[in-house]
């Protein structure tokens, strides 16, 4: 029985890891070191072009663009990581409970998540941000609430079919508690779709966070994020086009990386997940 082994990583997967890994590495570096302070202004050096001292030039307040892009990477990555963690945990736990126990719990949770999903796009996050106020934790909570219903749906659907399988019934027959059965036998079987979903979600969250920051509803300035840098650049398009190009390039590179990685993981783990969104 020698089946041909599938390559661990497709070329797309490798490109994805590199493209998504680079901003992640830069984000890590920016936590401990940036060439200049990302918020230090220098009014003698407004709109400076790229030089040995300022690799990517400076912005409308003379702040070092490279340092700001680096700090923006860590802001975006941190928000995305925290949001995906929150949404995945909340969605999986509630989804598993709903799919396993069904009944009124399932009915209530489904009504709530369906209603949350009735808000299109980032609108729900916009609304929650308004209620919570503009803080970094607010945006994590807002995006977490906006994205956990998707996780809930996927996990619930999966658990629904798993709960009737023999190995789950066997666990119950052995006298194991429901909590133990879910934790030990049901949830581990949801791992592949969860990995695929979490990867895609990482991309959605980066996009949503940058959109919120672009609207002025995300991480508040002066903390640089790619989104609010783009928003600020809109007024200075005539002065320095580079300020409008670089932050978007960073978002797109990170997103392309995550998307390629997501495609690769989906092909590998779960071909049926293609249409989930």
């Amino acid at each position, binding site marked *: 029985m020698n089946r041909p082994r599938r390559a661990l990583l497709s070329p797309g997967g490798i490109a994805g890891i590199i493209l998504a890994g680079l901003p992640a590495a830069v984000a890590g570096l920016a936590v401990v070191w940036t060439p200049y302070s990302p918020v230090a202004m220098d009014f003698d050096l407004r709109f400076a072009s790229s030089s040995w001292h300022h690799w990517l030039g400076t912005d409308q307040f003379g702040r070092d663009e490279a340092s700001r892009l680096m700090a923006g990477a860590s802001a975006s990555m941190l928000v995305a990581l925290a949001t995906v963690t929150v949404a995945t945990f909340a969605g999986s736990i509630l989804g598993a409970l709903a799919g396993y126990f069904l009944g009124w719990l399932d009915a209530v949770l489904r009504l709530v998540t369906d209603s949350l999903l009735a808000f299109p*796009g*980032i609108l729900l996050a916009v609304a929650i941000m308004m*209620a919570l106020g503009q803080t970094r934790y607010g945006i994590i909570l807002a995006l977490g609430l906006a994205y956990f219903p998707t996780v809930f749906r996927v996990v619930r659907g999966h658990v629904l079919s798993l709960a009737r399988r023999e190995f789950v019934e066997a666990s119950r027959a052995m006298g194991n508690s429901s909590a133990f059965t879910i934790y030990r036998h049901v949830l581990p079987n949801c791992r592949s779709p969860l990995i695929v979903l979490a990867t895609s979600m990482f991309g959605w969250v980066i996009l949503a966070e940058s*959109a919120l920051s672009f609207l*002025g509803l995300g991480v508040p300035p002066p903390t640089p994020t790619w989104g609010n840098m783009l928003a600020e650049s809109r007024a200075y398009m005539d002065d320095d086009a580079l300020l409008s190009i670089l932050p978007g390039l960073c978002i797109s590179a990170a997103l392309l990386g995550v998307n390629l990685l997501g495609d690769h993981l989906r092909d590998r783990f779960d071909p049926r997940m293609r249409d989930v969104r």
Partner: protein
Amino acid sequence: MITYVLRRLLAAVPTLLVVSVIVFCLLHALPADPAEQILGDGATPQALAAVRLSYGLNASLPVQYFSWLKHVLQGDLGVSLLNQEPVARLILARFKLSALIVVLAITFSALLAIPLGLAAGRWQNRAPDVFIVSVSTLLLSIPSFWLGILLLLLFGVHWHWLPVVGYVSLQQDFLAGLKFLVLPVLTLGLIQFGSFARMMRASTIEVLRLEYVTHARATGLSGRTVMWRHVFPNAFGPTWTLIGLSLGNLLGGIAVIETVFTLPGLGRLLVDSIFARDYPVVQGCLLLTALSYVLVNLAVDLTYPLFDPKISA
């Protein structure tokens, strides 16, 4: 068929009710006192009490919710705190512009993506397919507002072909108004292209594997006839669903595009109202967007039987 329609319509009612509760709670969960929000800082206690009385803010939350819901169901969304204009009239005017942009963008995108998706599926893994898939993946990774800025830099700032700021409505001056719509529609259309083309390609590949396609080919039909007459109708279902979903999603995400192109649409009104703390307008925008999203999805669901007769049962 009629029972199917009625069942789907009824199923949407609880969702819409919970949506209204969420919208109501979001604003009443605010830490600040609504009366203070209305009057601003430094209001006298007497004025605050008067506002609370006239807005019914002294009643318990459930009572306030039901009286609000009653008004909403009668089409009364209150008045804007900024200029006392009725919210319903204010948001409907803005909604028209947003809806126009979204519908034009989706049409443009679908007309481009469907034939290209079919072609990519037909020549799977060959040069045209690799090209279309690469472009789609790239477009999926570009934030709409950045693509908008890039197009603006190119067509507005660099070549001066199209206006960079401002807005003229189509009613005022059709041709000038059209100029302001070109870039937003192009931007949103290109952003959508990626997902439409990929979906069309994937279902084309699935359908092409089926035996009836082989049979159609064996009868001597030309490749083009097989693709359009036999493959397309069966492969179009998932893309149609996606088009419906995108319609609502774009309406929800259009605020960023309206910000880039300084257009007075619903999304921009929502964000401006949030900053201005004009909560009745915020409520109205959220409700209208969620409602149209639910209705569009419902409409898409109702067209399923056209593509799949098995569902109408």
